[in-house]
């Protein structure tokens, strides 16, 4: 072989290797559902939560490898409380947005203001859920902002780590439609289609309900992203997702139910990554329905359910059965020893007598496929209720019946929106939260007072005590039965290092440095 030929061959091999290295920097993901818009401030859906963390940053970061909150500097390099109601943040300098603009204190003020001072209905909802206590944001100088709250805020760090307070560029947003200098609702709509943040990936293509393409953002302020390009696309059918994974079209798939995990893990090229998700599947009762008014009846319904057996049967024993409405992610407020939900069929029968239950039919509404295992679980619940003498009829309805006044009982989920009972139990069961808004939960004044103590006491011990009292209230006059934290699985190629992390809210696909990479060959 001549030297020249060798040279040509060698360079061809090198070119091939380079080429495959370039390809190998790409990641393809198949998801069950894709968002219709991407605006972290407006969204609180389980579908949206998948996507934001790759492209946006919060003022305060978190160690997502740990369940309990461990705060780290984010777009703020430091923060301190200068009075019980004022927190001062020092802003990281030299941070770039994906459009090339430099992050300023004004951008941060704007990101919060657009939600707390809004007339745009979708933002109003998030203000109500997450930021009702934030009064204003003041720019002190180019490096400093101060956030004031109406009342002393024990959750300051948490609130500046949530998706809804991720930072967006003010000038870019205003320029998107109408008057380029003015902030208008049509700008928010346009932003949802062309989102820009400061995160390690920029969104280079977004087709609502179809796909997102992220590319590495080379000017990211932190450690650079491990992948040059990440494509997340919707593959709605489970069989389609599993096939695409096996066929090498995608590297990661979401929403693999427990009974399909073996199919994935039997393939020598694949593995399943599973995690107990910080989300509860629950049963709820309409306490305001005349027939459901008896608290003894609802107590009996709670005592009738053997959740351990259901876990064995439906989740292969891998779901988590909590004693009360609590998650390990709550840190100091994780209270696994409080017993709010217990199985005691004898007690259930006794309570039914007390309630003078005459065997009338109780309708239980469920969707057929919305929650994993929902229909199977509903049928098992019906049997367990039947075993103590409660007559339940399962009603599968196409439309959402949770907010209809004739609802008697139904299934629901209580996700953890941020790692504090206020961000899970609170979003659903605070005195004026979702359940009250839908008219099926009207707690008394004592509950509201306990809630206030829980939410705003500066001392952790006081908050713990108050939360225990709230759980006693729930046990005594139950509007809800927490079933389990579902066991959710992903299918992953062995050549990819990735797993869901316990420090995130449910369903986040985190492809940042240190969280995802290609296994070295």
């Amino acid at each position, binding site marked *: 072989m001549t030297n020249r030929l060798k040279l040509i061959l060698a360079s061809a091999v090198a070119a091939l290797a380079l080429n495959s290295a370039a390809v190998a920097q790409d990641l393809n993901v198949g998801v069950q559902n894709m968002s*219709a818009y991407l605006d972290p401030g407006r969204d609180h859906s389980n579908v949206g939560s998948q996507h934001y963390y790759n492209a946006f940053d919060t003022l305060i970061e978190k160690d997502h490898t740990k369940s309990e909150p461990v705060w780290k500097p984010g777009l703020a390099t430091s923060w301190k409380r200068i009075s019980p109601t004022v927190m001062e943040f020092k802003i990281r300098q030299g941070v770039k947005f994906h459009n090339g603009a430099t992050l300023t204190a004004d951008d941060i003020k704007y990101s919060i203001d657009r939600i707390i001072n809004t007339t745009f209905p979708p933002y109003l909802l998030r203000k109500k859920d997450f930021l009702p206590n934030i009064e204003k944001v003041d720019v002190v100088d180019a490096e400093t902002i101060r956030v004031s709250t109406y009342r002393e805020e024990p959750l300051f760090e948490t609130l500046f780590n949530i998706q809804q307070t991720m930072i967006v560029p003010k000038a870019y947003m205003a320029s998107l439609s109408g008057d380029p200098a003015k902030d208008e609702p049509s700008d928010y709509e346009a932003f949802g289609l062309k989102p820009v943040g400061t995160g390690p990936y920029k969104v280079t293509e977004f087709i*609502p*309900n*179809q796909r997102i393409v992220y590319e590495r953002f080379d000017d990211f302020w932190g450690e650079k992203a491990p992948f040059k390009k990440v494509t997340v*696309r919707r593959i*709605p059918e489970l*069989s389609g997702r599993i096939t695409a994974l096996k*066929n090498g079209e995608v590297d990661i798939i979401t929403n693999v139910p427990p009974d399909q995990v073996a199919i994935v893990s039997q393939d020598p090229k694949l593995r399943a990554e599973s995690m107990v998700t910080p989300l509860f599947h629950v049963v709820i009762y309409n306490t305001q329905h005349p027939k459901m008014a008896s608290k003894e009846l609802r107590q009996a319904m709670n005592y009738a359910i053997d959740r351990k057996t259901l876990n064995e049967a439906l989740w292969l024993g891998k779901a988590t059965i909590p004693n009360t409405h609590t998650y390990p992610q709550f840190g100091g407020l994780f209270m696994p020893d409080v017993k709010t939900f217990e199985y005691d069929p004898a007690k259930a029968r006794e309570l039914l007598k007390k309630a003078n239950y005459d065997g009338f039919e109780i309708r239980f509404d469920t969707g057929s496929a919305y929650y994993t295992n929902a229909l199977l679980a509903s049928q098992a619940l019906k049997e367990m209720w039947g075993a103590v003498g409660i007559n339940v009829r399962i009603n599968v309805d196409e*439309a959402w019946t949770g907010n209809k006044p004739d609802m008697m009982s139904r299934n629901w989920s209580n996700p953890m929106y941020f790692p504090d009972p206020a961000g899970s139990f609170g979003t659903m069961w605070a005195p004026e939260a979702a359940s009250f808004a839908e008219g099926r939960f009207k707690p008394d004044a004592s509950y509201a007072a306990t809630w206030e103590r829980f939410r705003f006491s500066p001392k952790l011990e006081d908050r713990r005590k108050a939360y225990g009292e709230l759980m006693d209230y729930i046990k005594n006059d139950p509007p809800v039965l927490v079933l389990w934290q579902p066991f959710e699985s992903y299918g992953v190629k062995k050549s990819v290092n990735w797993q869901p992390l316990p420090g995130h809210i449910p369903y986040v696909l985190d492809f940042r440095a240190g969280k995802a990479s290609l296994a070295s060959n």
Partner: protein
Amino acid sequence: MLEYLVGRFGRMLITLWVIATVVFLATRISGNPIDFLMPEGLDAQSRAAMIAYFGLDQPLMTQYLSFWKSLVDGEFGLGLMERRSVAVIFGERVWRSLSLLSATLAVTIGIGVPLGVIAAVWRSTILGNTVLLFAFIGYAIPNFVLAILFLLTFSYTLQWLPSSGSGTLAHYIMPVMALSAFFVASLVRYTRNAMLDVLSQDYMRTARAKGLSETDVILRHGLRNALIPVITVIGLQMTTLVSGAVVVETVFAWNGIGDLLVGATLRRDYPVLQFGVLIVACAVVTINLIIDLIYSAVDPRVRLGGASA
């Protein structure tokens, strides 16, 4: 002919107006999109704000008029779910669906008609019966079962073909096979029956007696006469094809308008749903017109307009 076309066009417009109005009313009777777009935890005040935001607080007549106005201005309104112009939403997807349907139609006719002729001419032979057997199988298996069987075989096991998406020619193979199987099968059966009728006619004997070759007899005298009922069937099946595409698009994550319409129906996304039904209706009405025109080309006895009977 011109008179006929103008009349037909006028009737087409009336049909479309009726369909659009029925869809407009039916969607509004079937539920409020707020319950489907934002199901959880809305108090009365937020609910009212969101209803106003989506423009659903307007009187029905105002909504109806702005629906027609949106058709005229070419934007077709703003999708409730995606909050962008319905024209853009459909623009992204319509060619994908049309290409899938065209490929399916081409395969259906290209395979179905010749096989039908073969099944008729070689009836009661192994060849004819084999064709018929496959036709029965194709007719009996629902397209979504077939789609999943194909996925299992060609993607999951053999790993020859991409399982989802719509980027390359290879992406077309399985969806087109799954979608066309039923239509090929029914076309084979219709063509076979029509051919059998024709083959026993006197003029076939005459054609042979004239000394024409057997190929000429079968194709020019036989098939041409047999085609009229077959064309009717193809026309009717085009509409079934659209509904079949909805299922197949979902299985193969095709991101076409079938998939879009299913989502819009579940969420009561009025603007998307109204426009989607309208264009499907347009397609069906146009296909019917084309079928009528083809009749007259195939059978000179059919005179459109009836003036020169």
